[in-house]
């Protein structure tokens, strides 16, 4: 019986996934109407993300181990892609474990302000209250603040670790939302055709007409800055490219022989969409996902850099903004978050390029 | 011979690929005489296009590299002369037509521009004169309503018309030699016949020297003065069209002719040559045709056959015809 219902939505896997989603929706309803808070808003994103990754990422990869191995070997030949992957894993580890090991990134200690990183030292004139004079002091970097402190004495290392967490959160969740919307709209548009396709593509054109960053600023301006809203804003505006790509891929698939054959055998629409169209556009979707993450991370840090980020979280953009104001006294505050941001974007770009080449049968690495 | 206009001597061309070195042309020599149409015949992959491209040093390098030999034209060795000198010859003295007129024409320039380009370059004509001359050339190769079409783009032409444009461009500077690399292969049969008519006219009226490359013996019958048969990067037989069609001597040539449908000889079916083209990375030690040859000798597997004269102009590279094997006891002088 279960398999029978499963077939309606394109397999048991989809059924299980839908069940899990419904369970989550139930929790959400309880969350809204019950007094106690069960999950943080972001928690829902994480659970959906994890479910998607398990059902449509890890499980299919495990099923087709040989193909996975083949693509992995092809990706591995890109030495830079491997570097990218290693760095991303490192970053994930830092984001998960780091906050427990570092100091509180928001703790202000004025007596320890502007301490340079280990190995550097600066001279600074300090006002002495007792004698009412300025004296020149020599401040060396200490291991207590390995990466130095900012002009409020906050520990740079702790702030960078916190920033890594924010960047990855936004990068993964917002990209996931954007890619999900884009894929669903693209497949629907290609498969249903007619006025649905027309309306969806016109809407895509309208969305693409807004300059991305201006639209983000506008949305945050109206809805107010919170991490959830930043993620939602990026996710809800960043899907247009994916939708177009997926639509054109699905359009060319729709007329291919195996889809025709499946339809002539009496397969239902949902079966064709779930079993044939979605799995076959998946490789393009994986590539575009990896290549979209850096843009999303950059958008978040740019927003928080200009002061439109969540004021309660310490992201790299916030630190960079603080650093910009103290360029002449504490250069490291501006340099360090930028280097992290740059390396993260570089790592995702390398990985994305490697994956794209691995999926591109024409490239011979 | 005084009459010789182009002399290819011991040409060696190798391609350096990931799988190894492909000896695409392996020590080939032939002469081309003034006013004759010389046809280079062989299966695809036998090196005939490589020979044609080597004449004007147009091979893509890498992977192709000319390893040795000479190509003599006028007083120059085309393989070694400086680039400037070669560019004065290209398009001006020796012109070339390629297989696929679709991709050989630049899609973003009008056909008139592309024909006029060489006129401006070599004959130093101004724009208007060059365009007028282009118009006459288009009429000459039989493009209807040439005056209207001169400003059209290649994609607005049919395949046959595009090839006519290519021919018009090649003829623009009145070259001494025209190299045509499978000019009819990408075309429909009827269009093919029309294009061959243009070549026949060129030969008859302009007495042009034409190096015609094809894989199809049928195309060259009635057009070729002399034929060079290539196989696996080597020339296996050279002779006048009569020699080759009436007295094919090399087993490969005989095989090629057996593949042709014939009206006079009533046969149930065409006879294909058994086997496939050998890998040119590790070619057979002796004769390249040995693995597919129906009348091989023990010698063929180990010793590469030299070219021997069969009769007059007719030479063959086959042990069957070599005097030592036949047992005549004397070598040809």
């Amino acid at each position, binding site marked *: 019986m279960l398999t029978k219902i499963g077939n309606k939505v394109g397999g048991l896997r989809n059924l299980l996934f839908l069940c899990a989603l419904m369970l989550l929706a139930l929790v959400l309803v309880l969350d809204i109407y019950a007094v106690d808070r069960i999950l943080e808003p972001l928690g829902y994103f994480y659970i959906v993300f994890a479910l998607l990754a398990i059902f449509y990422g890890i499980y299919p990869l495990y099923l087709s181990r040989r193909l996975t191995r083949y693509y992995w070997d092809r990706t591995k030949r890109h030495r830079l892609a491997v570097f990218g992957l290693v760095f991303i894993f490192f970053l994930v580890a830092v984001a998960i474990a780091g906050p427990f090991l570092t100091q509180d990134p928001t703790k202000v200690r004025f007596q320890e302000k502007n301490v340079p990183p280990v190995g550097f030292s600066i001279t600074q004139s300090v006002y002495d209250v007792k004698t009412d004079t300025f004296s020149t002091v020599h401040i060396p970097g200490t291991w207590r603040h390995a990466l130095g402190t900012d002009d409020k004495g906050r520990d740079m290392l702790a702030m960078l670790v916190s920033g890594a967490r924010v960047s990855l959160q936004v990068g993964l969740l917002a990209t996931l939302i954007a890619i999900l919307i884009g894929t669903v709209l693209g497949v629907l548009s290609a498969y249903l055709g007619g006025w649905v396709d027309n309306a969806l593509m016109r809407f895509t054109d309208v969305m693409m007409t807004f300059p991305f960053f201006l639209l983000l600023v*506008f949305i945050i301006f109206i809805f107010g800055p919170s991490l959830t809203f930043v993620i939602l804003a990026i996710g809800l505006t960043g899907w247009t490219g994916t939708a177009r790509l997926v639509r054109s891929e699905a359009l060319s698939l729709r007329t291919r022989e195996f889809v025709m054959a499946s339809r002539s055998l009496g397969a239902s629409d949902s079966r064709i969409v779930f079993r044939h169209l979605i799995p076959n556009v998946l490789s393009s979707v994986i590539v575009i996902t990896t290549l979209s993450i850096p843009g999303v991370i950059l958008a978040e840090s740019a927003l928080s850099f200009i002061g439109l980020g969540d004021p309660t979280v310490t992201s790299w953009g916030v630190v960079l903004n603080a650093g910009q104001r103290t360029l002449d006294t504490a250069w490291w505050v*501006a340099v360090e978050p930028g280097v992290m941001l740059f390396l993260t974007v570089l790592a995702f770009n390398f990985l994305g390029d490697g994956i794209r080449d691995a999926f591109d049968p024409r490239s011979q690495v | 011979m005084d009459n010789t206009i182009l002399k290819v001597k011991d040409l060696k061309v190798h391609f350096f690929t990931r799988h190894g070195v492909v000896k695409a042309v392996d020590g080939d020599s032939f002469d081309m005489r003034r006013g004759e149409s010389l046809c280079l015949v062989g299966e695809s992959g036998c090196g005939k296009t490589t020979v044609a491209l080597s004449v004007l040093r147009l091979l893509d390098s890498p992977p192709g590299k000319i390893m040795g030999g000479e190509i003599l034209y006028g007083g120059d060795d085309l393989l070694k002369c400086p680039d400037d000198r070669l560019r004065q010859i290209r398009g001006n003295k020796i012109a070339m037509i390629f297989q696929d007129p679709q991709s050989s024409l630049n899609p973003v*320039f009008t056909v008139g521009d592309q024909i006029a380009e060489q006129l401006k370059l070599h004959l130093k004509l101004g724009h208007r004169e060059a365009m007028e001359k282009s118009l006459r050339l288009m009429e000459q190769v039989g493009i209807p309503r040439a005056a209207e079409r001169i400003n059209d783009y290649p994609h607005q032409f049919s395949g046959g018309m595009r090839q006519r444009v290519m021919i018009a461009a090649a003829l623009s500077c009145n070259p001494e030699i025209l190299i045509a690399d499978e000019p009819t292969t990408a075309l429909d049969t009827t269009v093919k016949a029309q294009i061959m008519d243009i070549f026949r006219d060129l030969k008859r009226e302009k007495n042009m020297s034409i190096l015609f490359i094809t894989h199809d013996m049928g195309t060259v019958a009635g057009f070729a003065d002399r034929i060079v048969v290539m196989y696996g990067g080597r020339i296996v037989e050279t002779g006048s069209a009569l020699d080759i069609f009436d007295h094919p001597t090399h087993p490969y040539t005989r095989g090629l002719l057996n593949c042709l449908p014939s009206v006079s000889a009533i046969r149930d079916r065409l006879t294909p040559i058994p086997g496939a083209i050998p890998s040119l990375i590790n070619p057979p030690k002796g004769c390249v045709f040995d693995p597919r040859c129906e009348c091989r000798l023990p010698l063929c597997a180990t010793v590469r056959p030299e070219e021997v004269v069969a009769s007059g102009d007719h030479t063959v590279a086959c042990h069957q015809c070599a005097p030592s094997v036949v047992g005549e006891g004397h070598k040809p002088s």
Partner: protein
Amino acid sequence: MKKGGLQGYVIRRLLYAILIAWGVATCTFILLRVGPISPADKYLANMSARTADPSQVVAAVEARYGLDKPLYVQYFDWLSNLARGDWGWSFSTSMPVMELIQKHWIYSFQLILLSMLFSAILGILIGIYSAVKPYTKTDYLATFFSFIGISVPNFWLGIMLILVFSVQLGWFKTYYDTGLTLFSLANLKALVLPVITLGTGAMAGYTRYVRSAMLENLRKEFVRTARAKGLPERVVIGKHVFRNAILPIITIIMFDLSGVVFGGAYLTEIIFGIPGLGRISFNAVFASDYPVVITITLIGALIVLLTNLATDIVYTRLDPRIRYD
């Protein structure tokens, strides 16, 4: 026949652009009405200090914006105001938004134009050079730098340039001065770092696109034809290959304007204090100056719309294979 086809195409594209413009205006309207904060509140936050009776202000603002009318009336008022160029009153600067835009657009235009020239010229030259000599040391170096250029966040690059060249070396300490003419030496000098900041990412991108497009076209058979004609390599590459390779690049450059350049210009203007539209919008956001933020967003969309339109039309002139349908 051909000409009529082109005209028909242009008209169709124009009509479509109007449709999209309507869509953009409608989306903005919906966003505004869905948003949790009403314009009146934003006004109030700003005006309350100066006015005695807040409820009076709310009433005035609601009347001014017709917020007391039914939704569909508001919607039509919104559309007709936009179309007539009545874009509201900027209260943080006390002038009509239209006037404010007219005063400041030229600085954004100058910055974007200069940095696009910078990135397009350098990117194309480096890309061609890389493609002509592929897999050499210079090519690898160019590829390496283009990867870095693409990945470096431009606002951070701007800060680093200030740190090195202004703070440490003291070379470009001048700031953009609106009192001087646009192309005065001092202002041009002040624009050097912003142009590099805004242009580097795009330049790196163009380098890669041009390189791969050139390499792709160098493999085409018409290159062999061009060489067989006896054309010098300079002409073969500069004319035959480049003309084919540049077609997709033009679309990419135009497309960049919407995604990359506007966002970049916004941040660059903020970092370097250039009084362009980005800076104005930024100030308006923090002054809760509602009409200015809306208008600049809409202007950005309008410019993207117009450039897309222009690109499509220019493209039909450049690529003879395009059919007008």
